[in-house]
């Protein structure tokens, strides 16, 4: 995985651990803008089953900053992911 600038009009999304296994990708470009609250639905459309199996327990970051999407009233549901942003899907890893 090499971090590259996303194509114009797109944001970059990084998949770690179980998210990378599920999508069989470590990174890709997705069309922007997307509201944070719609991110999971957009991913579910591309990867059926990912919400239940991976996303629900993940930490999500935008430009290296954790965003809270837990619950409908969570603070950052209305944040908009813009073109050029870097989003990361970070599942908890528990092994050691």
């Amino acid at each position: 995985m090499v971090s590259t600038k996303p194509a114009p009009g797109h944001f970059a999304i990084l998949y770690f651990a179980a998210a990378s296994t599920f999508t069989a990708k470590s990174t890709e470009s997705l069309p922007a803008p997307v509201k944070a609250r719609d991110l999971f639905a957009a991913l579910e459309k591309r990867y059926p089953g990912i919400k239940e199996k991976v996303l629900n327990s993940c930490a999500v970051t935008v430009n290296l900053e954790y965003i809270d999407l837990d619950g409908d009233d969570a603070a950052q549901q209305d944040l908009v992911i813009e073109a050029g942003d870097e989003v990361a899907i970070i599942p908890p890893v528990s092994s050691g």
Partner: protein
Amino acid sequence: MFKRRLASLISDCDHHSLPNSAHGFSSPRSIPSTKSNMASISVIESLRQQIASCEVQLQHLRQQLAEAERQRQQQCEQERLRHTTTTDPLTHDMNYGIADDFRSEIFAVLSSVGDEQPASRRWPLDYSEYKRYGRQLIMPEIGLQGQLRLKNASVLIVGVGGLGCSAAAYLVGAGVGTVGLIDGDVVEESNLHRQILHSTARVGMTKVDSAMVSLSSLNPNVKLVPHYSRLTPESAISTILPYDLILDCTDTPDSRYLISDTCVLLGKPLVSASALRTDGQLMLLNSPPLPPGDSRGGPCYRCVFPKPPPPESVVSCGDGGILGPVVGVMGVLQALEVIKVLTRENQHSLAPPADAQGPQSTGQCAITSEPTPDPPSLLIFSAYANPMFRSIRLRTRKPKCATCSTHATITSEALNSGSLDYVQFCGTINRVDALSPSERISVDNYAKVRMEVNPFTGMEPSKDNHILVDVREKVQFELCSLDGSVNIPFSTVSSTPGLGANGAGSGTDGVEQNWVSKLRRPPEKPIFVVCRLGNDSQLTVRKMKELGLDCGGRRWIGDIKGGLRAWRESVDPEFPDY
């Protein structure tokens, strides 16, 4: 006293070794071969045990010796001081010539300077400690004060596996005064590529004892405290309470929530790390460790990951694999984080949260500090990515966190009473039991299908009258496989859409369709499905039937019960056990 103890230990050892040497070494040739084989195995086993127990005894002796030497040294020092001070004019003045209030003022100043050191000591550290820790002592980040803080600190390492071993090595090396070790497991051969404190000779020994042998030879000055069983909700508070700081080096989601919750309740900072395959994560949690509800405190594990991952998605190092240096680097980073927290300048003791102060409190205060200048962060390590490290800025405590917010529902009473079921919270995987008995075949019967010559026709056993599908991932299939088997990785099977989506297995991806259509072609051949342990094979049989590969029931499709593990155990003991 020590001599007597040593003598009794030696006679113990003799006593243990006598019967074995009589059986194993003096007359091996008189025993028939299978028996002698078994006997030699038991000799090896018993020798291992003897070595292990002698190593533990040796280590205890070393600790006693270190203790005795230290006492002796202190006595000498005290005597020397007593000798020199009798003629010291200052002593004379302090005893006879100074007003009482002035004298007590001087004593107060003197004692506040040297809290950590006995008044009799000339230097705050032992002579040998200056030498041993010299390379870190001369660094401004550590210095004398930092070293004394390390020496007075106690940390608990939960899990003595890949993370715990490398973290413990550096913390013990650095001279942390007390290090507790928790683990309920024994050392296995498959641990050794990454769990650096264990050794080939100590396979079978408890991980805690094995680590103690390594660590006490690395640095005999550190007090090591063994805890031989897994942390449970009932034992968590009493186990964690005496320590200043906790390292989560465990390998399951339920232990991560348990440790984090307990640390919040007891006001202990927590350094949490994890690693799988080529990825690792590191977080300093609950730092500063302020009481639940205080928003200036550091976030806890639940703030970052409020929901546990679904149990079927949780992969262990045994199933998913782990690269030694990946888990090693995460453990080393944990040790670094611990050293940074323990030697921090501005720390001072605060009373731990009121509800955590049980009667068993030892009076040791948790290490706390003013809200730190470093905002909380999650460090992500990805060995094959560029850059390898990413640091994520975390938020402060989550306003609705179940553990550390004003809405907290997790209390020490609930924890102690055992009413919090972490295993249930994280879910458990039901053993896959997806098929009826008629859809399954035992390894013994499958061996007959493959290997036995038909006694009537004299026909060679055939691998061609059926299809054997191995659904392990490609890399495992390449390690070892049964002759004639076809590899269709389970990840390919499970990502193939079923009939419901858009026709029989016609995924958008041509490759996935390919495996389905290939299996359709000789419709008279039964399909046997095998995997590593016998779970994925059942799910694959299900999927194949969903996709109509069983020709409406005219073609037999079934799985080989217990997978290749059962094959090795019952049929072919030489099939690799990886």
